[in-house]
């Protein structure tokens, strides 16, 4: 006989909990471009009305026939979603379908088992939301969702049992959940960390790069192949992190750190363009290092580059070598270094620094035709250059032009976006004020008009120190443009005509700056140890723990137990890291004390909660097992008094305490008495003495 489905008990409470969870679950989806805000707003409206109705405890929910009609009505929307709106994609229409089904199901909850259908839909949406999220703020969503889910499951469990014991309605508040939900969620989150770390990885970390919103990987404003004269000026207030750097040796002064990103050689239609040709593969040394220039490396800097939608590496201008997890690296004569692929996520690499700027002069003494082309320079700029630069050597004339621009022109961002037909003319002859791109572009054209090859370079100038972990941050606001010019025998040299007032500002001080740094720290850690966490990190953590264990053994037992580890030779002899400053990515990926603290905490927890209480029965069992191990004549089912007699024959030293212990055991086990604390302590002491008497030498 078919069993009648059970009606929904504790209906108001269950509806409210499911509604709250259904309201929260799809929150990250529009950020991740899995659904639109409009669709989500409609969904939230429907669920909000459901919650309102459930809160009032009203009856009369959607009948089954109406749910079926609604499902039929949705079919055309599904077809539209699949074939037109999200053509070729499955996830988005599927998520829309589940959102619709969940909203309808909530309104049509009648039976007990249907709450699980709704919860299944919520789970699917949760996995979709998490699986497409990479922003650290998703952690807050994750924690909130976890706590709410624990509350919901706990309440469902309480309702189930209360119903079984005769309560059909009312509230499950007789079972307080306050002491369970918050500690349970916290405990689960804490436990999830090591589980996350040890779950086996079979693939490289997958990063879903979607949109500029809070849900996806934030790709930085890329300095593209075409650069108009406002690009860098507009990014001056951009707080997005572009680079993070960790220096082995003392870093250069923050305002002098200069990182080269791109070189532009053609100025056409008031915009700079770069020639993509001229790349050559760089030879990789046996140590895995790509040597860019034949100069000794004085120190190394580890760099984390945010994804920028291109394969170009951003390098310090004094880089002479680069170490990156890639099979090939190509370099242009202008010093631009590029990877064959575009990294989808944060790229980590090391740059070997030389004593002086090397990147500008990789092609010493030569210039491309575009860099030497002075024919296209407007006549009045040519005339200005001739007046300003005068006669003399290339270096001297270039200095005069740079000094003129610095002295006679004012730095401003006020003129950004003035769509003039001749922005350089306006800058040089009318406004006499502008931003760094205008200064640098003017200098390039002036130099070229006077026969000095020059090119526009974009990159980043300056950095800020993050004391939370000891690394430097370069933000989008540090974007800058400057000039490289071929100055006769001196080769390619950097010229920066922007006045000091126009150089990127120092970092924000005070609370706001600290907050930014703290957020960046979190973001960096999240990106490095969650999103990009992979097999090699697991291996590194494992070897770190192993190394720690060997060190601990050496410390405890004074033995040199650490096997000799064959390490690949460092690319160049590098000075030791600065004492007291942690270097991210070097050594174990977690503080060395952390595993030890975890072990101690585990021992403490075991001692407090997990240790089995010694009873006279357990003490007797241990005594019997020990006696059996020493005396084959003691059988597995030996009676207590027989054991005492046997001990008297073989181990007289153990008889007295063993006899007392057996008496306690008989009282506890056969007499059904509960021994008090003093007697249990006595049992412990008797066991110790009896075991001592069992030693073979003490017969």
């Amino acid at each position, binding site marked *: 006989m078919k069993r009648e489905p059970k009606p929904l008990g504790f209906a108001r409470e269950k509806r409210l909990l499911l509604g709250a969870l259904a309201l929260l679950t799809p929150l990250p989806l529009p950020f991740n471009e899995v659904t639109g805000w409009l669709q989500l707003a409609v969904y939230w409206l429907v669920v909000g009305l459901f919650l309102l109705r459930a809160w009032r405890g009203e009856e009369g929910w959607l009948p089954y026939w109406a749910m079926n009609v609604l499902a039929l009505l949705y079919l055309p929307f599904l077809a539209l979603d699949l074939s037109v709106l999200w053509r070729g994609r499955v996830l988005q229409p599927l998520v829309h379908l589940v959102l619709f089904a969940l909203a309808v199901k909530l309104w049509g909850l009648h039976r007990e088992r249907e709450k699980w259908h709704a919860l299944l839909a919520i789970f699917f949406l949760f996995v979709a939301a998490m*699986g497409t999220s990479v922003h650290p703020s998703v952690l807050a969503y994750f924690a909130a969702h976890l706590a709410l889910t624990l509350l919901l499951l706990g309440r469902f469990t309480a309702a189930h049992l209360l119903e079984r014991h005769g309560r059909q309605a009312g509230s499950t508040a007789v*079972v307080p959940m306050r002491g369970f939900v918050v500690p*349970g969620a916290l405990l689960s*989150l804490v*436990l999830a960390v090591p589980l996350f770390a040890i*779950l086996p*990885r079979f*693939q490289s970390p997958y990063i879903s790069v979607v949109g500029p919103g809070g849900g996806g990987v934030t790709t930085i404003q890329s300095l593209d192949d075409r650069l108009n004269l406002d690009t860098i000026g507009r990014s001056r207030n951009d707080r997005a992190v572009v680079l993070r750097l960790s220096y082995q040796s003392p870093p250069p002064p923050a305002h002098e750190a200069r990182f080269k990103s791109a070189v532009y050689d053609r100025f056409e239609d008031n915009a700079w363009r770069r020639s993509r040709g001229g790349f050559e593969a760089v030879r990789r040394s046996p140590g895995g290092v790509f040597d860019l220039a034949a100069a000794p490396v004085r120190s190394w800097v580890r760099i984390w580059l945010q994804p920028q939608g291109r394969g170009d590496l951003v390098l310090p201008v004094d880089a002479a070598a680069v170490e990156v997890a890639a099979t090939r690296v190509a370099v242009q004569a202008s010093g631009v270094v590029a990877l064959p692929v575009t990294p989808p996520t944060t790229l980590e690499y090391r740059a070997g620094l030389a004593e002086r700027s090397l990147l500008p002069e990789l092609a010493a003494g030569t210039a491309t035709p575009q860099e030497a082309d002075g024919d296209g320079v407007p006549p009045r700029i040519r005339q200005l250059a001739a007046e300003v630069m005068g006669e003399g050597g290339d270096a001297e004339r270039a200095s005069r032009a740079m000094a003129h621009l610095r002295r006679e022109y004012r730095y401003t961002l006020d003129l950004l976006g003035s769509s003039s037909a001749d922005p350089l003319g306006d800058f040089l002859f009318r406004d006499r004020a502008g931003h760094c791109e205008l200064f640098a572009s003017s200098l390039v054209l002036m130099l070229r008009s006077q026969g000095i090859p020059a090119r526009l370079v974009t990159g980043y100038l300056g950095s800020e120190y993050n004391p939370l972990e000891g690394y430097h941050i370069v933000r989008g606001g540090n974007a800058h443009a400057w000039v490289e010019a071929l100055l006769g025998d001196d080769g390619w040299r950097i010229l920066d005509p922007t006045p000091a007032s126009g150089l990127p500002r120092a970092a924000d001080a005070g609370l706001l700056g600290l907050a930014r740094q703290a957020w960046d720290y979190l973001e960096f850690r999240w990106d490095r140890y969650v999103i*990009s966490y992979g097999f090699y990190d697991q291996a590194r953590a494992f070897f770190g723990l192993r190394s720690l264990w060997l060190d601990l053994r050496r410390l405890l037992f004074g033995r040199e137990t650490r096997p000799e580890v064959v390490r690949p030779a460092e690319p160049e002899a590098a000075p030791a890291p600065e004492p007291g400053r942690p270097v991210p990515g070097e050594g174990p990926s977690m503080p060395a004390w952390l595993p030890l603290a975890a072990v101690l905490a585990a021992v403490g927890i075991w001692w407090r909660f997990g240790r089995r209480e010694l009873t006279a029965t357990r003490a007797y069992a241990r005594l019997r097992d020990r006696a059996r191990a020493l005396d084959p004549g003691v059988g597995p089912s030996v009676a207590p008094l027989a054991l005492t007699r046997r001990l008297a024959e073989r181990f007289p030293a153990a008889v007295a305490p063993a006899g007392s212990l057996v008496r306690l055991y008989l009282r506890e086990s056969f007499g059904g008495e*509960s021994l008090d604390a003093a007697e249990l302590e006595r049992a412990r002491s008797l066991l110790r003495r009896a075991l001592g008497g069992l030693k073979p030498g003490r017969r």
Partner: protein
Amino acid sequence: MARRTVPEGIRITRVGVWYVVLTLLVAVPAANTGNNALYLVEAALLAVLVVSGFLSRANLRRLEVTFEPPGELYVGETATLAFRLRTRGRWLGRRLLEARGPAGSSSALVPYLPPRRERRLTVDLRPERRGRLPVPYLHLASIYPLGLFRKGLRYRVEGELLVFPAILPAGELRLAGVAAGDERRVRRIGRGHELFSLRSFRPGDDPRGIHWKRSARTGSLVYLEREAEEGRRLTVVLDNGVAPLAGAAAERRFEALVSRAASAAHHHLERGWEVELRLRGGGVGFGRGRSHRLRILEALALVEPVAAGEPLPLPADPNTACLRFALEAAEGPLAAEA
């Protein structure tokens, strides 16, 4: 008070099966794509599983259980067994504990037991057989916190109950003559305990029968006459020499016989009679009152069929009323030989 526990294992619930299936389902795309956000979800699902197990274990342990035996327990009558639960921990309250006594008893739910507090819980039991009923454990089980697993634990309480035979209503007994004629019996002067009459002291009366208080009040010696005891005495003879019993039907008939003997003794004792019980290989002498009734019921609760070789002890005084319960006499309607 019991603290010692015996684990009763762990059983996955239907919700738990779904939870494990979903956990495995998330693991597949996580491993297949290397998406660390899905790994995070997977780790959290596993962590919740572990935390649930830990809390479930902590929820059942570190309790003190005390058994409170019920007063009297009869076959076929629902009785209430009471236990006291007390939490030993300082921090952790216990939630959703389901308790069950011996086999056949109902279960009770303790929704919440705060830390270091005590709660009394009761379970109903309807014994099907007379005799000793051990209550070795209180079985505790819980699906707390999330309903994924059902974990059980036994607390040793070492209790034992004695189930008395079923007591039939007096009207059902149809005892020939004795019980029904209770009100028609002849009162005689004798050496019993009950008052018969007060009269003036006559020479030859036993001076021990003088009612001194009444004599002091009236100024003349008053003599207290007592009722003869044998007028309210009953011997219940149960012939248990029927072993071996052939089959379940015979066992049922014997149980019915024991029940009728117990009912007869019970109802007569309730009416103030002195009752003795005679069995092959034992019995209980004359007596009255509650404690005597319990002694007789205890003897009848534990009586077993024995071989018929031993003689059936009959009452020495032929004037004493006697009810004999024997299997051959019970073949017909429930009746006793008076």
